[in-house]
C-alpha cells in the first residue's frame, strides 16, 4: 500500500496527501497500551440487565457465586491459620469454637443456614455439572428438571444442616 501511495504521489501530488508514508516498518514496534486504554473507556451494551431471567443462566451464575463465596471463606480460614503466628494473632480451633459458643442460638441457626446453603447448592449443582459432562440431561427438559431438583434439595439439606 505504501508503494502505490508513493507511486501515485510521485506522478501527481494532490493537495492533502503526504508524499512520504509514515507507517511503521515493523509491525512488532506497535504498542498495545493505548488500545487497552481505549478499550477500558469503550461503552458496553447492556447484557446481564436486559436478558430474560432464566433458570439456566441464573443457576449457572449462582453456581459461580456460591463457589467463590465458599472458597473465599475457606481460603480466609486456611491462610489466616498459616499467617496468624507471624502476626501474633491467636487463631486456632479452640479460639474459633469458644467464640462461636458465645453466639445466641437463633443467630447460630441463621448463620449456619447462611453458611450451609451456598455449600449445598454448589455441591449439588456441581453434581449436575458432572452429569452434563457424561452427556446426561442435555435437553431443555433435563436441564430444568435437574435444576429444580438441585434448588429443592439444596434448600432442604441446608435447613437440615442448620438444625443439627
Amino acid at each position: 500500500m505504501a508503494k502505490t501511495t508513493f507511486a501515485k504521489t510521485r506522478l501527481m501530488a494532490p493537495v492533502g496527501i503526504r508524499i512520504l508514508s509514515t507507517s511503521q516498518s515493523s509491525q512488532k514496534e506497535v504498542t498495545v497500551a493505548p488500545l487497552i486504554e481505549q478499550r477500558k473507556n469503550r461503552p458496553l451494551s447492556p447484557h446481564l440487565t436486559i436478558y430474560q431471567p432464566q433458570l439456566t443462566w441464573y443457576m449457572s451464575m449462582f453456581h459461580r457465586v456460591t463457589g467463590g463465596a465458599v472458597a473465599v471463606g475457606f481460603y480466609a480460614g486456611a491462610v489466616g491459620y498459616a499467617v496468624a503466628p507471624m502476626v501474633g494473632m491467636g487463631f486456632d480451633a479452640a479460639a474459633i469454637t469458644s467464640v462461636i459458643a458465645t453466639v445466641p442460638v437463633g443467630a447460630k441457626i441463621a448463620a449456619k443456614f447462611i453458611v450451609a446453603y451456598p455449600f449445598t447448592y454448589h455441591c449439588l449443582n456441581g453434581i449436575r455439572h458432572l452429569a452434563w459432562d457424561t452427556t446426561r440431561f442435555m435437553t431443555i427438559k433435563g436441564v430444568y428438571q435437574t435444576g429444580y431438583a438441585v434448588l429443592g434439595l439444596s434448600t432442604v439439606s441446608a435447613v437440615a444442616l442448620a438444625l443439627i
Partner: protein
Amino acid sequence: MALRLAASPLALSRSTPSLRLASAMRSSSALNARVYFHASRSTASTAGQTSDDVTAAYQAVPYKTITPNQVHGSYHWDFERLLTISMIPLFAASAIHGAHPITDGLLGVVVPIHCHMGFDAMVTDYLHPGNTGKWGNKAVVWTLRGVTVLALVGCYQFNTTDIGLTELVKRSWTA
C-alpha cells in the same frame, strides 16, 4: 459452565479491508487467539490520511502466536473433573466417619486445588490481559498461586498440629 474452545487458526484473508476486519473479529472469538487491532500510525499523526489508510490502521495483527500448551487441552479438563469427582466420596467419608488423618489430609489438598481452579476460571473470564493488561493479569495469576500455596500450607499445619478439618467443622457446628 465456561467452554474452553480450541484455538482456531488465524486466517487473514487477502481481500478488502472490511473483510479483513470481519475475519479478524471472527478469529478473535477464539479464547486463546489474542488478536489485537493495532494502529499502523500513531494517533497524533492522523491528519491528511485517506480513507484507505484509516481502514488499514485497524488491520488485525495477532498479538502472540499460539504455542501448544497442556493447560489449553483436555488434560486440564480431565484433571479438574477427576478432582471434583473425588470430592464426593471424600466429603461423604468425612461426614460419616468423622475425623481421620487420611481423609483430612486429602481434603487439605483437594479442596484448595479445586478452589484454585475455580478462581483461575474467574480470573480468565473477568481479569484477562484484555482488560487488565499483560502485567495486571500476570500479577493476579501469580498472586492467586501464592495464596493457594499459603492455603495448602495452612491446611497441612492445621491437620498436623491442630484437630484437623473434619473435627473443626464438627466442633464449630455444634459449639
